[in-house]
Structure formats: structure tokens, C-alpha cells
């Protein structure tokens, strides 16, 4: 990649990504405004690491991940992906035909294991589908590969002739993971992979994802709203608010010593599973700002307990306050915010 200081370890680099959705009204469907779903997002993901994108609904985390996979075409910005063959390609601008070989190298794990698997197809059909679509192997080889994949995710290969309805939510999520891994992708985008699962099953799937990463050297872009889950799987975390990254750092410093008031409030809002720690909360007032009409200055200022005049007028940029710790807040250097203790 062209970034200085990168010794070829970056698998993905996203620069100034923007995605606007037009708002149309009336009989002529005239464009009357724009939803700024993703509005100038820059981050990178090292090979073999997990970067979590966190934030509340509407913050743009899912749209960002969809852009990375080019399921959504970005309005502006670059998505540089280092291919297995060597060259770095810009996913944002590639033609459809050129995208196809690239899609083998980036795969997705979905949130809902009930609606993401076709109920009329067997596990064999489902898991082998990417192999068939990419004309990999003959039928015998595919059956062998599916058996291997099922074993890899902790399912018995004998199950491959069965249909999804015979499996629990956790088992279905394993099937979804097996399908995502069929083509040996380098990057796996996981959008809320455990949020639809029960607690005991959630733990199993998170462990599986950690194991597979160690075993196969996978790189994860992990989209989630649950910060406890994120703590268990991520090397680094990017916190998004109304289409922008407001804080990005390694997991431990971000949780232990957040530098953005929104991160502090998010951490404080997570219910702690210990009745002796009923927290004095930083309760946020109001709702997440409207991405079609974000407030002037810092988008978080109407809800921020620390906002000053400057925050209403001037939009803060994402800057390093310490090496590897980026914050978009005018007061990042002066505030002493509360994180969560180990």
C-alpha cells in the first residue's frame, strides 16, 4: 500500500470514505436532501488483526462494512485492499467484472442465522455455494471440502445432507461461518455475528471466531454494538457516531481510558453483570442525531456534558492524542474521562 510506514502488513486501508443516500420526495421523486450515512471515515486493518466498528444504530458502522465489501457503492473515498496476488486494488472504484475475483478474498458473516440460510437447501448446498459460483473443484472435491469446513466449525460432516431447520441458532451460525470460509478469504466482515444468539451460544461462537483466526490467520472487521462482546474479540476499536469515527485506539486503552465523551457514555451505559456495581451512570439525554441533518460543529455536542462554545461551531478532526490513539474532540487533551476498570 502507498501509506508511509506500512511494510505491507496492512490488508485494508479505507480513506475518506463517504456514502450519501438521497432522500426523495413527491411524485417526481426529487432529491430533497442527503443522509450522510458515512461521512469521511478513515481507518486501516492489519493482516491477522480484528478491528471492531462500534456505535449505536444509524452511526454508519454497517454501511461502512457494506462499502468495504462493495455491497454498497461508496459516494467518495478509497478502499484499498491488498490482494493475495500482491497488487493493491481500490475496491471503491473497481468495475463489476474486476470485483468478482476479489470477492473470493473478502467474505461476510451475517447477524441472523435464521434468515441468512436458504431453508430449501441442504448444508452441503449452502456451504458449497461459493465453490460452485467460483467453479472450484468437481462435485467430489466439493463434498470433501464441505466436510472439512463443517469439521472446522465444530459440526459433524454427516449433517451435510440435512436442512437448516434441523439446527439451532448457534449451529446455523456455524454453517454461516463455514460458508464464509469456503474460499479461504483473507478478510471476514462479521456484522453483529452473535447479537441474535443466546448467551451460552454467543460464548461458543465468539470462541470459535477466535480459534479460527488463530488457526487460519484471518483478518476480521467486526461490526457490533455490544461493547462487552467487542472486548473479547478485538485488537483495536473504532467508535462511530453519525457517520464519523470519533475515537479509535487499541482495545485496552479505549476501554480503560477513553478520550471521547461519547465513548465514555457508551461504556457507562453498558449494564454490568454485578449488582454490587450499580453504576452512577453518565446518562445521555436525547437520541442519536439525524444523519440527514446533523448538528453543526461536533455532531455529539447537543448530548455532550462537556460541550463548550467551540464544539457548537467547529467540527473536530480525528487526531492522534497518543501514538495509535485517535480522537475527534476539541477537549480530548484536557478532559479526564472515566473508563471501565479491568
Amino acid at each position: 500500500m502507498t501509506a508511509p510506514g506500512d511494510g505491507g502488513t496492512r490488508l485494508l486501508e479505507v480513506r475518506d470514505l463517504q456514502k450519501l443516500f438521497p432522500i426523495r420526495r413527491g411524485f417526481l421523486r426529487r432529491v430533497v436532501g442527503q443522509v450522510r450515512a458515512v461521512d469521511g471515515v478513515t481507518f486501516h486493518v492489519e493482516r491477522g488483526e480484528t478491528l471492531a466498528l462500534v456505535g449505536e444504530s444509524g452511526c454508519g458502522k454497517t454501511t461502512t462494512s457494506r462499502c468495504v465489501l462493495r455491497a454498497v457503492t461508496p459516494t467518495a473515498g478509497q478502499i484499498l485492499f491488498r490482494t493475495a496476488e500482491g497488487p493493491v486494488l481500490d475496491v471503491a472504484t473497481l468495475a463489476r467484472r474486476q470485483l468478482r475475483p476479489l470477492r473470493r478474498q473478502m467474505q461476510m458473516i451475517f447477524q441472523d442465522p435464521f434468515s441468512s440460510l436458504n431453508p430449501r437447501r441442504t448444508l452441503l448446498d449452502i456451504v458449497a455455494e461459493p465453490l460452485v459460483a467460483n467453479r472450484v473443484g468437481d462435485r467430489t472435491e466439493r463434498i470433501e471440502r464441505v466436510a472439512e469446513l463443517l469439521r472446522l466449525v465444530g459440526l459433524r460432516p454427516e449433517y451435510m445432507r440435512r436442512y437448516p431447520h434441523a439446527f439451532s441458532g448457534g449451529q446455523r451460525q456455524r454453517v454461516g461461518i463455514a460458508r464464509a470460509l469456503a474460499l479461504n478469504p483473507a478478510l471476514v466482515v462479521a456484522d453483529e455475528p452473535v447479537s441474535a444468539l443466546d448467551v451460552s451460544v454467543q460464548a461458543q461462537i465468539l470462541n470459535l471466531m477466535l480459534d479460527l483466526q488463530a488457526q487460519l490467520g484471518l483478518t476480521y472487521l467486526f461490526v457490533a454494538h455490544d461493547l462487552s462482546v467487542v472486548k473479547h474479540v478485538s485488537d483495536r476499536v473504532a467508535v462511530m457516531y453519525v457517520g464519523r469515527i470519533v475515537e479509535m485506539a487499541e482495545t485496552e486503552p479505549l476501554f480503560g481510558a477513553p478520550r471521547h465523551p461519547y465513548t465514555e457514555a457508551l461504556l457507562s451505559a453498558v449494564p454490568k453483570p454485578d449488582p454490587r456495581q450499580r453504576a452512577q451512570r453518565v446518562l445521555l439525554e436525547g437520541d442519536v442525531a439525524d444523519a440527514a441533518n446533523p448538528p453543526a460543529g461536533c455532531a455529539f455536542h447537543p448530548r455532550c456534558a462537556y460541550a463548550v462554545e467551540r464544539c457548537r461551531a467547529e467540527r473536530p478532526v480525528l487526531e492522534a492524542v497518543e501514538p495509535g490513539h485517535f480522537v475527534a474532540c476539541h477537549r480530548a487533551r484536557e478532559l479526564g474521562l472515566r473508563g471501565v476498570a479491568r
Partner: protein
Amino acid sequence: MATSTAGVSRPGARPILEVRDLRTYFFQDEGTVKAVDGAGLSVYAGKTLGIVGESGCGKSVTARSILRIVERPGRVVSGEILLRDRDGRERDLARLDAESREMREVRGGDIALIFQEPMTSFSPVHTVGSQMIETIRLHQELDKKAAREKAIEMFGLVGIPRPERRIDEYSFQLSGGLRQRAMIALALSCAPRILIADEPTTALDVTTQAQILALLTRLQQREGMAIVLITHNLGVVAETCDEVAVMYLGRVVEQGPVDAIFHTPRHPYTRALLRSIPSIHAPVRTRLPTIAGSIPHPYNRPPGCPFHPRCPDFMPGRCDRAEPALRPVAPAVDAACFLYEDARA
């Protein structure tokens, strides 16, 4: 069949709602699903009881059974649902006709329910205000104008900004958090003594969840009502509940004060469940302890203790033969597990 006694006995306080050995079955062509199979609970005035458990444990069906709104082919098969009035009068809701006038007055009047998905709880073709006014007038003798004023007052109470304008909006015009607030206002408009909240914050973001939980706590202190909070989120339970009932496959396996449940859990399922929750305090990138296997399909309910195939303390010949009853195992704590039967004998 094992019977379960209802919850914890406390000197000086009688529960205002007591569920005893409740069984609610769904009769389907493929077989009978015993969604609730011998559950017992006690709800005290001014206190919050949390019912926790994973999908299929029967926590929502228990709530629907109390209100007698179980949908066909389900029905309350046996058990008692005792509702005590302020003057000590006791009624068994399990014996009332679900469609009767008396039961309709209990619903909304004595016991109100809020759901997980506030989007589907309001009609999309009526304003939220008109639905609230209708509900208020169903339970109280107020004219339209007075009911509207009451509705606006309730909207203000639950923290909806500019209530006099919001009341004329449709539910889709409100954000998720405001919709849940409106739902709470609707539920509380007739001053119920018991509020059953079924996953009230599951569809919401964490910051909104914190707002709604704080609101429920504030309203409880103000109105003195009892809350039954049904959730799978153990963090929410730890932060808001006084008492906790842990359910597994239709039965309460442990019930006790929140501190005892979280700090000295007795039932192997409670212990395993608590260990497996991702914690925000955990070291970065750590594996979680898991519970072996998965929740059995309702048609394949294991014999004996329903948890035995996944239990680390499984005693062959014992746990797979008979079902343990819910019995006292420590002060104010009940558990249904053979581990404690010998100790007691």
C-alpha cells in the same frame, strides 16, 4: 411430577402475585410443547423481579399466562396465579375465563404489559394519543378531554419532550426510545400495581436502554408498583432487579435475592450462565467458558432434570431419572437441583 413451591417466604410481606406450579402447554400436531412446566414465582409490591433465561425457557409464556393472553394452540393447563388486592382479597387468574370482563379489567388495570418491540405494539393507522385515550377510557370514567389531558400528563411523566404535540403523532414518527417511552406511558396510564416488561430494552441501543431502565426505576419509586422484568440480559438484571428467577426449559431452577444469585449462584445452570457472559471487565481477547451442548428442542425434552445433558455436576442414575423440586437451599434462596437434596436431608 415434581411440584414447585412459590419463591421465597419473607416475614411481614406477602407477595401481591404468586404463581404456583404453572403449566402452559402448546398442543400441536407434531406433539405437545411444555413451554412452562411447573414454574413458581413471587412478586412483591414495590420490588422488581427479574426472570432470566435463554430462548425457549418459557419466560415470555409465563408472562402471557399470568395475563391469560397465551395464543392458541397454547393453554394454561394447571397451576395457580394468585393476585392479591390491597384489601387482602385473593383471586386465582388461572381459573378466570380469559375473555371475561373481570380478566379484561385485570389486564391493563391491575397488571400491565410492555413488549420488546414497541413498533408492533401501536397501531400504525391511529395516532399514539388516540390509542392511549381509548385505553384510559376503557379503565377509567373520564370524558375525552380529561382522558387527553391525562395522556399528555403521562407522556410528560415518561420524559417525552413536547408531549402536547407528540401525542398527535403516529408511532412510526417516533424514534425507538420515544416509542418505548410511549409504550410505558400507555401501560402506566391506568396505574397498574404490577408492570410486566418483556425484554423492554432488547431492541434499543445501550444509551437508550440506560435511559429506559432509569425511567422504570424512577416510576417504580414514585408509584410503588411491582415490576416483573423478563430479559436474557444478565447485566440488565444485575442493575435493576431485587429478586431473580432463573428459568430453564419451562421451569424455575433458581430464585433468590439478586446479590445471592450473582455472587453465590447454587444451580449449575445459573453458574454456567453467569460464567459465559462476555464482560466489559474481561482482559482483551479472551476465550469465554461455555456451556456444553445446546438448548434441547422442545419436542426432545430430556427426562429427569432438563439440564442434566449439559450439566458439569450430572449424577448418572439420579438426575436423568427424576426431576428435582425447587426447594430452599440457603436463606431466601431456592434451587431445583439434587446437589442440595442430600445436604438438606
